[in-house]
């Protein structure tokens, strides 16, 4: 289980559920950026890195199909431009059609600027219809899973700063996690973004000690990390113990980036 290598015949699928509610305009973890800005930056960087991981020879190979679903004033795919309305897109097509190019600093060398393609802009408007977003994820993913039965199971990463305003998402999330390929059931991971600089709770393996029912609910919605993700997390000196779930509460920008890195690692992507 969770061992199928990714290749062109067995692509992976990653769907991001992105909170675009009004509260996302608040500052992130006591910093200067809004949560919406920090989140869009983290997602754009992650997609860029996934594209670069998929370059082989003279082409970008379709090792992944990616989707972006936003939930706030409305619920739906948030790719724009030439990708508008598309739910899951082969990564070579995503590479071809960013909304625009921006600049970013080189990791570890902030004085050097590099291209940063932009696929998602910050949005903060409306409530938090997380349940509808999880439901939409199911309808998008089930079709993909049925047509990629031998692939690594789909990964859904839900990033939010608050409780759902459209009912309890736990039961629909449980149904989502039942979607499977022959290599295992869908992995649903959750990260909660904090307004304040609080101590994050990372990858818990028990609800004991979680501060409130909302946090416990997100814990219950979250899948356990796969053995490979556990190994990756340990390699990054992250505090993971047996049974650790893909869940971070009160994340700041650094924890969000770490979470996205760990939570999108499959066993192997078609050779190093």
């Amino acid at each position, binding site marked *: 289980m969770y061992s199928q290598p990714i290749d062109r015949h067995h692509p992976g699928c990653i769907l991001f559920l992105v909170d675009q509610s009004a509260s996302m305009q608040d500052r992130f973890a006591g910093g200067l950026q809004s949560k919406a800005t920090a989140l869009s930056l983290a997602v754009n960087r992650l997609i860029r890195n996934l594209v670069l991981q998929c370059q082989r020879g*003279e082409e*970008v190979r379709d090792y992944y199909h990616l989707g972006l679903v936003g939930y706030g004033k409305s619920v739906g795919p948030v790719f724009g431009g030439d990708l508008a309305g598309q739910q899951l897109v082969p990564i070579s097509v995503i590479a071809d059609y960013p909304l625009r190019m921006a600049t970013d600093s080189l990791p570890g060398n902030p004085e050097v600027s590099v291209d940063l393609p932009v696929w998602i802009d910050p949005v903060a408007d409306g409530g938090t219809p997380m349940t509808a977003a999880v439901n939409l994820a199911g309808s998008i993913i089930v079709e993909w899973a049925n047509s990629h039965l031998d692939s690594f199971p789909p990964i859904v990463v839900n990033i939010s700063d608050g409780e759902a305003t459209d009912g309890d998402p736990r039961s629909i999330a449980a149904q989502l996690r039942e979607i499977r390929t022959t290599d295992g059931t869908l992995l649903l991971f959750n990260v909660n973004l904090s307004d304040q600089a609080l101590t994050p709770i990372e990858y818990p393996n028990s609800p004991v000690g979680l501060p409130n029912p909302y946090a416990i609910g997100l814990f219950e919605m979250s899948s356990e990390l796969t053995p490979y993700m556990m190994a990756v997390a340990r390699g990054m000196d992250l505090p993971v113990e047996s049974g650790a779930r893909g869940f971070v509460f009160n994340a700041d920008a650094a924890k969000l980036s770490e979470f996205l890195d760990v939570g999108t690692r499959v066993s192997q992507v078609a*050779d*190093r």
Partner: protein
Amino acid sequence: MLQMVAYWEPKEGTSTSEWEDGAAFSAQTGWFAIADGASTANSSREWAYLLTDSFVHDQPTAALEVEDGAGRRAFLEWVRAARTRFDPHSPEFPPSRMPSWVQSAGERLGAHATFLGGRINDGEIKAVAVGDCCLFHAMTEQARPRSFPLTDPGQFGTAPALVSSLEAGDGRLAESVRHYRAPMARGNVVFAASDALAEWLSRGADRPELWHALARIGHEGFSELCQDLRANREMKNDDVTLWRASLARSPGVAV
């Protein structure tokens, strides 16, 4: 009489043109090299080809010296010279089908490959290696072959040392260079393998029948072996290269 041969198999599901290892050798001069281009880096296939071809053509004798770090310094000098011949924009390379931002990001990150090269000459074998391409030196029919630079299957990982097309990592490269030197007697057989096969060979190194079979394997048998190992999940699905050199027991007689 020194005989050399190389076999290769691309990853399952890919074509021969997508094979990202490199191999070059000359039984006349005794020089040989294999390399494994890091798939996640831009133009690494071309970099692996260039490293192996250049090594056999340039014959950098000093790079094989074991003593006092001289070989290490000479190997780095040879790599620097090879870099001057590496041009990702060369018309010899297939035209890029990547968007320009991916192309430029890839060039900034450079091309990378593991490397193993050496020479068999005057009753001796010398080799230099960076990363997890491995050499196996069978000195008698029964003894476990000597293995270089890795000696244990547990040493294979997902982040081997690499020879980069960029100078930025040369400090780390210098620390990663390994050398091998041993007598090469008549009847000896030497194998060099890229990492996937090398790891499998390392696990079976105590089985004399394995080495006997590999000493006689041909193109078809090698292809079948790779397919079986992949089907049984005994070997990861990776490009595979095997180079073999044998020194006849008596002049003019093949092993």
